[in-house]
Structure formats: C-alpha cells, structure tokens
C-alpha cells in the first residue's frame, strides 16, 4: 500500500472522528447522539449480556441460510451488473479523481486504496451486526463474531466490485440492454424454477439440472465462502480469505479504463443534462447541483420543472428499478406461497396490493424526493424567484401528493375490480357496509388527503427545524451512525405525534357522523363519514401548509447545512 494513500485514509478517518466529537458541543448534535445511544444501548446491550450459546439460530437454519444467501448473493451480483456499472465499479469522488489520477500512482495502488478506504465503515458495520446477532449465534466469542462478519462483508464487497468491473470490461466492447438485462433475467428465472414443485399453479415438470446449473455456482460460493465463514471458525475464514484474494486479483487483472469512473461519467451526464436544458430553451447551463429545477423554475414553469426534477432524480438513482425488483421478488415469493394453499390468484394480488396501497402515503413521497430541505441548498436562488413562498410550498407538496394519490387510486381501482370479480369479501364485511364500492369510495377520499397531510407534516418539521429532523438516510452526507439514528428517532416521534394530533378531530368527527347518521345514509354512511373526516383533515392540512410555506421566507440560506 502506498504510504501516502495510507496516510490519507488514516488522517481522513481521524479527521472525521474529530469533527463528530467536536460538534457534539452543539445541542442539535448532542441530543440526537444521546437519544441514539440510549436507543442503541437499550436494544442491543441487554441482548449481548443475555446471549445464550445454546440458541444457535444460524446453525439451525444452515440449509435455508445457504439457499437464502445464494439468492442474496445473486441479487447483489445482478444489481451491480445491471446498475453499478454506470460507475465502472471503481467509484471515486471528483476530488480523488482530480488529485489521485494526476499523481504517480499505479492502477493497483488505486484499486488497493479503493478497497482499503471502505474498511473503516466495514469494521463499524461488523461491530454493529455482531451486537445484533450476538444473542442468536453460538459464536465462541464476541471478537470471533466481529471477525466473521468483517470477512463476510469484505467478501460480498469484493464480489460486487468484480462483477461491476467485469461489466465495465464487457461494456467497452458491447453495450446494449439485452446483455445488461440477461443476467438478472436468468437469475430470476432460476429462482422461480428452484421453488418447490407443489408451489406451481399448473402442472410443470422442471428438469432438475436447469435451476441447479444456475444456482449451483452461487451455492458453492456461499457454502465455501459465507457459510464456511460462519460455521467452521478459522478454516472457514481461510476459505473466505482465499475468495477475497481471488476477487482482488480479478480486480487488478480486469483492465477497465479509469475513464469509466465517476468523474467522466458524471461529466458526461452533466453535459447531457445541460444539452437538454439548452434544447428546451428555458435556462442557461448551471452547475451540477443547481442544474435541475431552480433554473427552470426561474422561467415560471414551476410544475413542469418540479416534475422534470423528480423524474430526473428517480431515473438517475435507479430507484424505480430497485423498488420494482424488491416488490416483484416479495410478491413472487408471497404469491407462490399463498398459491400453494390453493387461494385464488386474484385474491393473492388483492392481498398484495391492499397494504401497499395504504402505506404508499408513507412510501411514495420519499421515492419522489419529498424532502424539500434539499431545495434549501438553492435557497439563495429560490428567494429571487417571483414566486411566493406559500405558492412554492403548495406546488411542491401538491404535486408529490397528486402523483402518489394517482398511484394509489389506480391500485384501489384494481383491488375493487378484483373484489367484485371474485366476490371473496367475507359476508361480515357486507353486513358492516364494507362492500367493494364503499371501500373504494372511502379510499378515494381519504388516501389523497392522508398523503398530503403526511407530506406537509414531514416537510413542516424539516423546514421548521432543519438541523433537528431527518427524513431519509443519505440526505446529508457525513451524517450517519448513532447521531443519525437519534435524529431519525426524534423525527419519527415528532411525525407520529403530529399526525396523531391532526387526525384527532377528523377521526372523532368521522366516528360521530357514523354513529348519528348511520340510519339516514344506510349502507353509504361510511363513505359519507369518511368524506366529512377527509374534508376536515384537508382544511387542517391546508391551514398548516400555508403557515409552513411562510417558513421559506424566514429561513436563511445555509440553515439546512448541518455540519
């Protein structure tokens, strides 16, 4: 390892620790850190003290563990093959690229630096995982468990890197979507085929060699790598270390040009974005961080700009693909599990969609980048726009709500159609006035308002006290760990409390309407009561949104910066 790079890693780590400790002098960092520490300690320390060596869950689930880990490894490899190649596997920050690429450092040294740079976070993660799993594994010692997790995570990381680098090498010659999608499709296909035969809803004989030919290599890797790491103590570690060594050699050998790294890729993407902005003729090219909606919003087309910004962001981060794969996998497994119990396919679909439709109010806005605090980075520019702060907030919240609500209504319609077709609702539901149409009407009026309320509460909190609340991880770089956990807990508590308070009056009113007007409205009393509740909630939300919008005016640029 180059001495300079070693110096950089060590000094940077010490510098980061020093910053974290020194900023604890400020209450906005101290309180979240204390709360996070209390939470962490209260959950994991008792487990550690009460660890029962006889309760070795990992050993008990050995067979299933190998299968699950094979799927997990396959997923990671497919993901890095499909999405990570955009960064060529070896991602460097622009500072690293500008300084280190211009320095007399060989490719091997840069690869080693890249791998070594990730070790401090991996050590911390190993410590955390060891605390979590200490009570359910028969590890001889806590140190043993830390080392085991450390090796397993390094193995996973190396495999992921090799996969991404391999794609980088292949892409140099052939770059097209069929090649990019074929490994995930083959993996998905093999996953389906490897399910037990009785799970299939139709008669289908799967040749045993077919799934095995795909999954066997993964099984072998897991069995000889991960599984051995966990089961066989130091002999397993040796196997893992050998695997890591092989991956390392592969990283060195794969001759991927560094041009395919973050720097060049980011520059190319930025140039594409700028050309697009220029093509639209609405704004001059801006810097990377301000290239999205503020320049466009200056032209007055706020809604279009906001939509474009969100879509760009979603596309850039590949979140739709990630979520689609996650939900498809969950749905597939759950679906087949239920089918094996001879439940109608439509009903399985309805069962899958119903909870997703309900929790979309909480899940979708983050996918749509609901954290308006990120726009505070551009506050200096925003404040110069001829748009009132209330209008700004309503636009931001309104569009997020509208997109989420449209998605929910599509799901709701689908569920209603399924329920009508199958007629599978229990008779008690009908007796209570909970027919498919009534459920649809209730959802139709309640869900959009609920989504709007959630968006307003969450963003109201972060605009009110930007340094105290967090909506999602990674929003503020360098803020993670115990302190971020504490901030997350504070945020969840505040959000829950806010939502509960806002729901109090509409909830009570809905109950009263249902109680007193049940007879005159008959079976439609529930939708009527829901409408009254939704209207009240909407009024509350609009009143709060108006006040929260005013916060933009009072905020000073830079107030969102935590460090």
């Amino acid at each position, binding site marked *: 390892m180059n001495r300079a790079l070693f110096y950089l890693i060590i000094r940077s780590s010490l510098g980061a620790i020093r910053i974290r400790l020194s900023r604890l002098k400020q209450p906005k960092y101290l309180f979240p850190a204390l709360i996070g520490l209390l939470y962490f300690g209260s959950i994991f320390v008792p487990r550690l003290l009460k660890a029962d060596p006889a309760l070795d869950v990992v050993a008990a689930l050995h067979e299933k563990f190998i299968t699950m880990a094979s799927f997990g490894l396959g997923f990671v490899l497919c993901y890095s093959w499909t999405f990570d190649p955009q960064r060529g596997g070896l991602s460097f920050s622009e500072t690293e690229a500008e300084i280190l690429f211009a320095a007399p*450092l060989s490719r091997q040294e840069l690869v080693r630096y890249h791998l070594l740079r990730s070790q401090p976070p991996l050590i911390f993660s190993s410590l955390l995982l060891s605390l979590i799993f200490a009570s359910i594994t028969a590890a001889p010692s806590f140190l043993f468990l830390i080392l085991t997790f450390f090796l397993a995570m390094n193995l996973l990381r190396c495999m992921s890197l090799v996969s991404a680098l391999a794609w980088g090498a292949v892409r140099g010659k052939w770059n097209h979507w069929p090649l990019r999608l074929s490994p995930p499709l083959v993996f998905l296909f093999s996953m389906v085929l490897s399910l037990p035969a009785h799970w299939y809803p139709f008669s289908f004989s799967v040749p045993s060699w077919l799934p095995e030919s795909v999954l066997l290599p993964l099984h072998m890797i897991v069995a000889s790598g991960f599984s051995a790491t966990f089961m066989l103590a130091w002999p397993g570690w040796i196997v893992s270390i050998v695997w890591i060594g092989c991956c390392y050699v592969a990283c060195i050998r794969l001759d991927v040009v560094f041009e395919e790294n973050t720097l060049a890729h980011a520059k190319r993407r930025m140039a594409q974005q700028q050309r697009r902005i220029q093509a639209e003729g609405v704004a001059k090219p801006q810097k990377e961080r301000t290239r999205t909606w503020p320049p466009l919003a200056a032209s007055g087309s706020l809604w279009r700009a906001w939509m474009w910004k969100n879509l760009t962001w979603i596309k850039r981060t590949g979140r739709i693909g990630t979520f689609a794969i996650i939900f498809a996998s969950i749905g597939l497994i759950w679906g087949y599990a239920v089918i094996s119990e001879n439940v109608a396919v439509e009903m399985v679909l309805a069962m899958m969609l119903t909870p997703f439709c309900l929790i979309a109010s909480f899940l979708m806005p983050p996918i749509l980048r609901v954290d308006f605090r990120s726009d505070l980075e551009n506050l200096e520019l925003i404040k110069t726009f001829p748009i009132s702060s209330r209008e700004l907030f309503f636009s931001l919240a309104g569009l997020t709500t509208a997109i989420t609500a449209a998605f929910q209504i599509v799901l709701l319609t689908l569920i209603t159609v399924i329920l009508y077709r199958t007629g599978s609702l229990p008779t008690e539901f009908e007796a209570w006035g909970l027919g498919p149409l009534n459920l649809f009407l209730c959802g139709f009026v309640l869900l959009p308002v609920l989504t709007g309320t959630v968006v307003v509460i969450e963003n109201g909190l972060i605009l009110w006290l930007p340094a105290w609340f967090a909506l999602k991880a990674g929003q503020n770089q360098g803020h993670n760990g115990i302190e971020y956990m504490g901030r997350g807990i504070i945020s969840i508590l505040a959000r829950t409390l806010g939502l509960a308070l806002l729901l109090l009056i509409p909830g009570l009113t809905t109950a009263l309407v249902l109680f007193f007007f049940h007879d005159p409205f008959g079976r439609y009393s529930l939708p009527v009561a829901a409408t009254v509740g939704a209207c009240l909630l909407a009024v509350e939300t609009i009143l709060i949104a108006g006040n929260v919008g005013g916060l933009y005016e009072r905020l000073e640029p830079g107030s969102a910066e935590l460090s």
Partner: protein
Amino acid sequence: MIKIEGLSKIYAETIAVDGLSFQVNEGEILGLVGPNGAGKTTTMRCITGIIPATSGEIHVGPYSIKDHALEAKQQMAFVPAEVRLFDHLTVREHLLFFQRLYSTQESGLSPDGLLDELSLTEKKHQLPGALSRGMKQKLMIACALIHMPKVLIMDEPFTGLDPHAIRLMRTLLEAHARTGAVVVISSHLLGMVEGLVSKVLIIQHGRRVAYGSLAELQDGMPELRADAGLEEIFIELTSGIRQNGEQVL
C-alpha cells in the same frame, strides 16, 4: 519539456479536442486560452493523465504519458479549476499528504515555509470547510508547489483570489518558471495572462487557432493595430469571422 502531437479526445459523439499540437520548453509559461467549451480543461486533463486521450502523443520530458505514465506524472502537478480538497484533512495535512504522494519529503519545499509564504499559517490546523474560496485556492496551489514539479498545469488559477494573492501568485509562478519548470495556465483574465506568459495557445472547438508569443500573434494579424493586446487578438480570432478553426500561425 511538454510535447503534444495530434491530441484528440472524443466523448461519445462530441469532439472535445481535435488534433491539437504544441510544445512548451523549459522555463516557459504557456497561456492556454479559449472560449467556454473550447477544450482547455480536457486538454489539461489529458496531459496530466486524468483521462486518456483518444489519439495523439503526449510527452512530458522523455516520458510518454501513455507508456510511462507514472514517470511522467511524477514530474507534474495539476491545479483544477474547481476546488478539490479532502474534507477531513487539515491544511497542513494536505501538504504532508502531497509530499508523501510525490515522495518528496526530503527534496521538496517545507510545508510550514510554503504556508507562511501564502499567508496560511494561521489556518494550518483548519479543515477546508472553514476556509474561504480564496484560501482554498491558495491551498490547492500550495499542494501543487510542495513537490517542486517540473511541469505545473493550472486551470483557472486566479479565480477567487484577492489582488494581493494574485500578485503573490504571479511572483510565485514566475519564480517557478525561472527554475526551469514549465507552467501551463488557462484563464479568462486575458490582461493578466498577457503580462505573465511567454507563449499563448488559443483554441476553439478543440482545435488550435493560434500559437506563439504575443509578438508573433501580433505579427500574424496585420489587420489589427501593431500594439493590439491579447484580448483584441482573442476576440478577433474567436469571433464569427474566423470560426472555421484554421491554424493561423
């Protein structure tokens, strides 16, 4: 000291640099000027080996950047246009890191002396986040100078500096060139470039439009008055009249 022959860089369908050739000798300061998007930064990045050239030859002293990258890079230092510093290293640690990176703990400049010269001594234990834009720029220049490079390449080095710092920087660059080093700077501050450089390379659309000393450029443009400055020459060469990119000198 630096010899570029037929340098081209193509991004997908965009030709950033198109067959650029020039040479800078020891002790010379070259001003690389051109409109926005002309390919100045790409040229500098190719020379420093940050990105590979699509075609062409780049020689730094006896070393080709393609075949002997490490030896060539050992001779060079690059100051990018944007501030690029490590968030968690202090000012002094940056200099120590660069000393180690180029293995010049013994032969290079003293970090404390350089910090003193650039008026950064008071900030030596601060992190970059606590520095102003100008101070960060000074630190980047200090990092580049710490190992006494034979080739110093600077992209917009005067951005963010106050008049005192600019004067100091000019003195430093001139002194560095007098030691026999090659200095290549790109800047839009043409008045400043004019008084500092010994040669000027004007590029547009990735191609060489003019190359030579200011006197040579003036001689090559009889339509301008005899004492025309670099700004006038630049405007004349890069305006619509001569946008075909032909080499005039």
